[in-house]
C-alpha cells in the first residue's frame, strides 16, 4: 500500500522546543517524521515536516486537531496538508 503522507507546516516566532514538542506529538500519534526543513522567510519562522501517517491512529483530522491545540499553546500556526496537494500544485 502507498504511504499516506502529510506536510506539517509550522509558522510563527522562533522559540525553544518547537521541533521537540511537534515531534513528540507526532510520535504519540504513531506518525513517522521523514524530513524536516526550517527557514526564516520574510521575517517569519517556517518549519515543514514531511510525515508518514499510514500508521496514525487518529487520521489526519485527529492529528490536525491536536496540532492546532499545540500551536495555540505555543503561539504558532500549524497547517496540515496532504502530500498529494503539494505535489499536484508544484510538480507537473
Amino acid at each position: 500500500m502507498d504511504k499516506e503522507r502529510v506536510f506539517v507546516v509550522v509558522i510563527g516566532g522562533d522559540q525553544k522546543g518547537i521541533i521537540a514538542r511537534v515531534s513528540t506529538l507526532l510520535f504519540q500519534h504513531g506518525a513517522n517524521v521523514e524530513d524536516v526543513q526550517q527557514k526564516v522567510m520574510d521575517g517569519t519562522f517556517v518549519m515543514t515536516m514531511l510525515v508518514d501517517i499510514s500508521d496514525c491512529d487518529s487520521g489526519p483530522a485527529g492529528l490536525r486537531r491536536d496540532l492546532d491545540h499545540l500551536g495555540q499553546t505555543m503561539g504558532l500556526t500549524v497547517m496540515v496538508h496532504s502530500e498529494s496537494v503539494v505535489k499536484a500544485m508544484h510538480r507537473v
Partner: protein
Amino acid sequence: MSFSVEEAFETAGMILFHNFDIRAVTLGVNLKDLVRPDAAELAGLAHARLAGLGARLKAEAEAVSQDLGVPIVNKRLSITPAAWLIEPCREPDAPLILAQALDRAATEAGVDFIGGFGALVQKAMTAADRRLMEALPVCLSQTNRICGFLNLASTAAGMNLDAVARLGHVLKDMAATSDDALACAKFVAFANAPEDNPFMAGAFHGGGEGDVTLNVGISGPGVVRAVVEKYPDCDLTMLSEVIRRTVFKITRAGELVGRELARRLGVSFGVVDISLAPTTMIGDSVGRILQAMGLEQVGAPGTTAALALLIDAVKRGGAMASGHVGGLSGTFIPVSEDLAMIEAVECGALSLEKLEAMTAVCSVGLDMFAVPGDTPAHALSAIIADELAIGMVNHKTTGVRVIPAPGRAPGDSVDFGGLLGRAPIMPVNRFSGERFIARGGRLPAPAGALRN
C-alpha cells in the same frame, strides 16, 4: 520526491493569508425520471433524492477537506431545469410546491443552495416555461436556498425579446415581494448558459448531463493579487506568466479535491470551473488585482485591457492544470461581493456602462449590481438585452443579476450581508429604450453563428 520548504509554505500561505479555497463543490442531479402529473408527488420524490444526496455531499466534502487540508467553502446541488419537471403538473401552484420541497431538502441536508429553478427560453417559451417564469417572484421570495435562472439568448438561437421584455416586470415583482429585493440576488438571466456551471445563482444540471455529476468551482483572487503585488514593475508579458503559474497551482489543487470527492461519492467528475470568484474578505478581490496591475481604481481607462490580460492568463494556467475545464471559467466581477468594486462605484470611477464594457472580455456579465428602485421594467429589460447581446454575438456566456432596490436612489446602498455583500446603487441612463423593447419578437442569431 522532495519538496522545498518554500513550496510547502507557499501552499500553506495561500490558504492562511490569501483566502485560497475551493469555492464550491456542486453536485448536479438529474430529476427527469421523477416527472409526475401530481406536483406534490414530484416534490416529495425530488425532496427525498436531494436531501439524501445533499447530506452525503456535505459529509464527504467535509471529510475530504480535512484529509487533504484544503478548505471547501460551499456545498451545493443543481437540478434539471425546473420548467421541464413541472411540464405535466396540473396544479396552478406546481412551481411553488416544488420550490418549497427543494428548499426543505436543502435545509435538511445542510447545503447552501439548490440551483436550477429555471428554464431555457432562448427561442420561445412552452406553457410550463411561462408558468415557471411568472412564479419566480413567489418561489424565490418564499424560499431561502433556491436559485433561479432563465436562458434568454444563445448564439445559435438569437434572443427571445418577448421573454426579455416580460422579465423586466417579473424582476420588479421579485424586488417588491422580498426584503431589499433579495429574491433578485438569487436569479440570473443568461445568454449561452453553461449546463455544468457549479456557481450560483446560475447553476443547473443540463439536458446533456448524466444522472449525478460533481463540478468544482475554484477560487483564488487573493492568491493572484498577492503574486501580482510581488511584481509591481514587470512588463505585461511577465505579469501574464506569473498569473498563469499561480492559477495553474490552484487549479491543480481544485482538480485533486474534485476527483477525490467524486471518487468517495461514487459519482462522475464533471468539470473544474476556473473562474476567479471574489468575496468581501479584505484582499480576496478581483478589483484589487486590477489595481495591483496599475489601475488607480476599477473603471479607470485601461480597465478592460487589464481584465482581458487577467482572464486570458487565468484560462491558460487553468486549462493546462485540468483535464476538463467547464462552467463559466471566466472572472467574476460582481459589484456587491468585491470591496474594490464597491469602492470604485462609490468614488465615481465605475459606471454601469464601463461595467458592461468589462463584461465583453470576461465571462460572467453584469453581476450583483443595484439600480434605483424606480427603474422602470423596460429599462431593466433593456439592460439585460444589451448584456445578453454581448454574449450572443461573441459566442460566450453572459449573465445579468440586477437588484432594483425598492426605495433606494444613487448614493444609497443595499446590504445583504454575508457572501452577497453590499451593493451601492448605480445610476441608470435616464434616456429610454422602451419603444425598442416593446417591439418584442426575436433578435436574429448573429450571422457568425452559421458555422456548419
